[in-house]
């Protein structure tokens, strides 16, 4: 009786471990996205994009294990640990937002597993941090986008500029970059205001901005909440130019903002206006490939630039994994190290947001080809040539 019992328990343990341990030699990709919580509008298209990624690379099956971090830093770290220790993933894609990605760096560096972040801050791949050896990211740095805005402002002859931004890391990050570059361009910052994503009214901030009589206003917000200051500015009779950041580049923003957004300028990844790019543009083909694939799965007009960051992470992986497969078997330490080296060696990879050229000191690898200036015309994005 006793022996049969122990035999049974051994069998159960064996069966359970079969369930948890992934089949040998499959490439396991752990994905951490913010599909719920404040960053859900970014995380949901990213999650949808994961479903479109290749299911086999270099003849090996690829398993994607997607976990939601609810836009919460603690959960992101917990999920990362779970993916590393229980699912034994070879690479992590995530997370959606900067604070989560920053917190995950320590965890992946400790486990010596490469990670590709979909968050924007340049700090994530700051080469001064030795742990960043394991970390890559796909979205453009704020500084690249800021340069595009200030260049456009200077060309339009704006001298006094006001700033309204989120009272969080996004707004502060933009203020930091923008104020530095604006100063270099001799553009004077005459007002700087903050508001919250969840605010129902920004009348106070807008009145203060208008009292400073700026030639142009930059609104540093993400998604539909960025429409509120713009609507209030127009409602209170502001006639100058309004700039937005690439954080608003989705169709829900256009819908909420309506006619108040006509003539707004913003920098964005080329994927936003993929159809309008000239055929000679090296990004056009790869950007269109993503747009078509996403819209085929999720309906016309559903594509966003945020999902494209996830797509680019998938392209980086699909490009690097075959080289790593030549050196080692998936699931081993050697494979993860080889994958990291291959990611760092990415050259001239055409993706949805630009051309990636990684190096030891640059784990983003995007250049000026990764941004275009866009104007809102008749409720749609229009590329400024």
């Amino acid at each position, binding site marked *: 009786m006793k022996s049969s019992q122990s035999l049974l328990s051994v069998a159960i343990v064996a069966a359970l471990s079969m369930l948890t341990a992934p089949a040998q030699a499959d490439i396991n990709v752990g994905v951490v996205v913010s599909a719920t919580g404040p960053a859900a509008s970014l*995380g949901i298209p990213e999650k949808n994009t994961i479903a479109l990624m290749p299911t086999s690379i270099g003849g090996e099956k690829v398993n994607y294990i997607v976990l939601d971090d609810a836009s919460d830093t603690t959960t992101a770290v917990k999920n990362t640990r779970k993916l590393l220790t229980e699912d034994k993933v070879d690479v992590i894609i995530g997370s959606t937002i900067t604070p989560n990605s920053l917190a995950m760096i320590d965890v992946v560096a400790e486990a010596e597993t490469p990670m590709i972040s979909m968050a924007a801050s340049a700090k994530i791949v700051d080469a001064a941090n030795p742990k960043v050896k394991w970390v890559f990211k796909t979205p453009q740095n704020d500084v690249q986008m800021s340069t595009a805005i200030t260049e456009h402002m200077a060309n339009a002859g704006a001298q006094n500029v006001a700033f309204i931004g989120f*009272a969080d890391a996004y707004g502060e990050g933009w203020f930091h970059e923008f104020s530095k570059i604006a100063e270099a361009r001799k553009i004077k910052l005459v007002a700087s205001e903050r508001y*919250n994503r969840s*605010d*129902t009214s*920004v009348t*106070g*901030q807008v009145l203060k901005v208008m009292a400073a009589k700026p030639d142009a206003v930059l609104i540093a917000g993400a998604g539909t909440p960025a429409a*509120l200051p713009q609507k209030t500015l127009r409602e209170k009779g502001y006639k100058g130019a309004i700039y937005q950041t690439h954080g608003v580049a989705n169709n829900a923003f256009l819908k909420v903002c309506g006619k108040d957004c006509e003539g707004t300028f913003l920098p964005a990844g080329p994927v936003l206006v993929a159809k309008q790019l000239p055929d000679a543009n090296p990004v056009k083909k790869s950007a269109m490939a993503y747009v078509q694939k996403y819209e085929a799965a999720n309906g016309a007009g559903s594509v966003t630039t945020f999902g494209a960051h996830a797509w680019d992470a998938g392209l980086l992986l699909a490009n690097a994994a075959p080289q790593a497969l030549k050196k080692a078997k998936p699931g081993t330490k050697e494979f993860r190290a080889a994958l990291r080296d291959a990611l760092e060696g990415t050259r001239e990879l055409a993706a949805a947001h630009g051309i990636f050229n990684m190096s030891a000191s640059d784990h983003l690898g995007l250049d000026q080809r990764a941004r275009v200036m866009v104007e809102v015309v008749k409720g749609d994005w229009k590329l400024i040539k």
Partner: protein
Amino acid sequence: MDLQIALLLAQDGIVNGAIYALLALALVLVFAVTRVIFIPQGEFVAYGALTLVALQAGRLPGTLWLMLALGAAVAALDGPAAWRLGRRRLAGLLGRQLVYPFVIAALTYGAAPQDWPMLLQVALALAIVVPLGPQIYRVAYQPIEEAPVLILLIVSVAVHLVLVGLGLLFFGAEGSRTPAFSEASFELGDLTISGQSLWVVGASLFLIVALYVFFERSLYGKALRATAINRAGARLMGISTTLAGKLSFLLAAVIGALSGILIAPITTVYYDTGFLIGLKGFVGAIVGGLASYPVAAAGALLVGLLESFSSFWASAFKEVIVFTLIIPVLVWRSLTTRHVEDDE
């Protein structure tokens, strides 16, 4: 800051304050009658607004399914008892919890509400969202209606989290707006007053007066007041505390959903917008000690004005300033009122 800016800020503060005042009243009402601190109050704001958005876009709002599901749950919970009490009771229960939701669902599905006039759309949105109030009371609070305030509060947090999660599922992460009730605007000296802000203030005043009349003149209103003053006493007089609870949740749902519909043209409403608006209403209600309706309304108005002016002076610290208001209020209240250990 010149006079014109001050007037604009005051106008903005009053419009927001009117909404906070409504929510503060609902919170005071629910707390007084049932001792529940109704954190999910804000969710009704978001549900009301977003249900209207969905109806106008010709989509089926997710709240419709929630109402159907909760109706079935309530029918299952109350069915056996109603069966024992007789056929009329059972017919009433089934009519309210099964037939009514299906009629509304059929109407929404079949009658293309996107082509209706605005007023009928608003009525349909209310008809979908408002029954959720008593249904939530039946499912979440009625089984523990004699529990201590702390347990009721914990349940409130749970209900809030469930409703926010469902909100994301139903309406998605992006915000929406509805067209204004009226595009009219009036010039008053330097000041432009939009028709919508008049709607908000007018509707708030109307609701406040209506609530006053309800509590002073109607039998149900008096029953609610009696329950609020003395639960056991009211019970001895033959007033059902369960009915009082459901009624107060019904009123809270009406107020919440209507507030949402009123602000949807002014601001972008998200699935989670309601929480913060409800929280500001709560600050107002705290000023009134969760007991006094006029002081709560005045407190909410104060919150609206404070918010408006602090967003001008120190926009980065606006929320800090608004929520710090609660500290001096609590200090003042604990110094001036005699604390009675009446609960537990």
